């Protein structure tokens, strides 16, 4: 028993070191991870920055509109005199939170559907995969626009939820998760299919383990790495979709700032103050590219067979 445990942990460590070494070789991915951490910390520190600057993100000043950068306003002010830096930081909170939560929710749904299809196979598999194909065939952006425009009252939701302040944030997370699970589902299905006939799974079946236990204890831990890669790669896309919807006025609703809806206002004053359109877009761009590099690096590290 001891012997088995030792070997198990030793190979585990060796695998871990190789993983981290391969990942650290991907310099862009390492830098990206750093950038993401800095962005997240800065967003979390938004109240502290407010205190330092002695103003708040919501304070408007109509005498100080579209001001140039100064000590008071390090990045200047927007079209109604709000501090641009503070708006960016609070917008970052919303955009990053929406991206992370929606990505994790998609991964959970996708894993659930993929496991069921791959483990049980047969009719259930065929049914679930045809359903997945159908969702993939839906035109993503037009569909998201429709979903974002839906009247929640018509779905029978109580007004206390349908009209609460953060409902636009919950709604965008929900609708992105509703259409975003397909990649993970297909991936998990294939992995689960190949796991099902492996000896240790067959041994578990022979010992009388229940299906749920086999999926949870024996299969899932072995297919975590492709799920992590796919989820990381999806965060970038989700941040993009959130920003597009918010920009079109269908995602995060003002006064809650997000990088997308900050650009909606900037577009209206693009002829007089084009500088307002630069920062929010740059933040989205940096975030998305960082998550894409990170996902790419993780993929290289976890899947030696993959050709970049």
């Amino acid at each position: 028993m001891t012997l088995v445990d030792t070997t198990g942990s030793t190979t585990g460590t060796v695998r871990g070191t190789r993983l981290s070494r391969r990942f650290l070789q991907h310099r862009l991915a390492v830098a990206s991870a750093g950038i993401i951490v800095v962005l997240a910390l800065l967003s979390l520190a938004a109240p502290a920055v407010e205190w330092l600057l002695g103003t708040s993100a919501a304070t408007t000043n109509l005498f100080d509109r579209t001001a140039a950068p100064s000590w008071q306003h390090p990045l200047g002010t927007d079209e109604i005199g709000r501090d641009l830096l503070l708006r960016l930081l609070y917008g970052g909170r919303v955009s990053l939170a929406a991206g992370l939560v929606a990505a994790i929710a998609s991964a959970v749904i996708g894993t659930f559907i993929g496991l069921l299809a791959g483990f049980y196979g047969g009719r259930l598999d065929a049914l679930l995969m045809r359903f997945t194909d159908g969702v993939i065939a839906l035109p993503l952006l037009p569909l998201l626009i429709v979903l974002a425009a839906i009247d929640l009252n018509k779905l029978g939701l109580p007004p206390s939820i349908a009209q609460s302040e953060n409902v636009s944030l919950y709604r965008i997370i929900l609708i992105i998760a509703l259409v975003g699970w397909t990649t993970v589902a297909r991936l998990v299905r294939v992995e689960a299919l190949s796991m099902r006939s492996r000896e240790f799974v067959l041994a578990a079946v022979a010992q009388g383990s229940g299906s749920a236990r086999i999926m949870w204890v024996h299969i899932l831990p072995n297919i975590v790495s492709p799920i992590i890669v796919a989820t990381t790669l999806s965060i970038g896309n989700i941040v993009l979709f959130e920003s597009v919807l918010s920009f079109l006025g269908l995602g995060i609703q003002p006064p809650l700032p997000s990088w997308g809806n900050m650009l909606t206002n900037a577009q209206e004053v693009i002829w007089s103050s084009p500088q307002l359109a630069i920062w929010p877009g740059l933040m989205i761009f940096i975030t998305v590219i960082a998550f894409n590099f990170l996902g790419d690096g993780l993929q290289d590290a976890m899947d030696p067979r993959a050709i970049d």
Partner: protein
Amino acid sequence: MLRFVSGRLIESLIVLLALSFIIYWLMGLMPGDPIDIMIASDPNLTAADAQRLKALYGLDQPIFERYLNWIGSALEGNFGYSRLHTRPVMEVVGARLPNTVLLLGLSLVLALAIAVPVGIYAALKPYSQLDYIINLTCFAGISVPPFWLALLLIILFAVTLGWLPAGGMGHVVAGSSGAFGARLEHLILPTATLTLLTVGGFTRFMRASMLQTLRQDFIRTARAKGVSLSRMVAAHALRNALLPLVTVVALSFGAMFSGALITETMFSWLGMGKMIYDSILGNDYNLALVGLMFATGLTLLGNFLADVAYVWLDPRITFVSLEQRR
């Protein structure tokens, strides 16, 4: 072959039918309904009038009945009137479709014209300085927010330099002198945006596909026999490396249309994408339904073409093995 293609086609049509119901149902969940809009625009309508109107248009029936009515008249070619355009839906689509085809087609051709040579070059010199730069640029193209890219191009070429119009092709009078040139001017920025959004993914794929081909035995044999590098690429590797790209291009129809929707909206390019966006926001149900069905059909067509091309272009894959794969 014929059996596979027809089977796949029927499957696509069934999926399209199923999705059409989902889309119809979702449209029913949009705020308001056509009668509410009539009431809002005519204060003399009473509640009893509204009830009668709902009965007249069949809006008091359950959703499935309404769907059957809609699909029935749609199959007869009657898609109703557009509220925003006050014209039959099909007339609006007929005016918008050529613009989208032009924008999408041109961007696709340009993206491929850039992606194929650049991807091949990167694959021939993997891990070189230039390959690194190409890879970075591709990632930038994949990661840039589409509407922000459009805004940047507007700031640079319309606001700062004043070279190109920021949008508004609707103001060009058809048939007037210089109308063609003016239309061309309005086409440049949207095409550039959509091309930049698409080219990164294609280039990365072309590079990966070429790298994989170059590692194969028949390439090594050709090199050993003394075939020159350029001839090896042109005569031996290119065909094989292009095969998977065809599939990827077909599969990207849906994503390209999403990009076109944003691009058209940003530059007021009067195509299908802007039509869908305006009709959803303007409660133009008939038009939105047809627009969404078009977008769904386009995505399904891409998937269908990808499957057929996959088998048709590569003799090593049989239809039987594909059936087993599915």
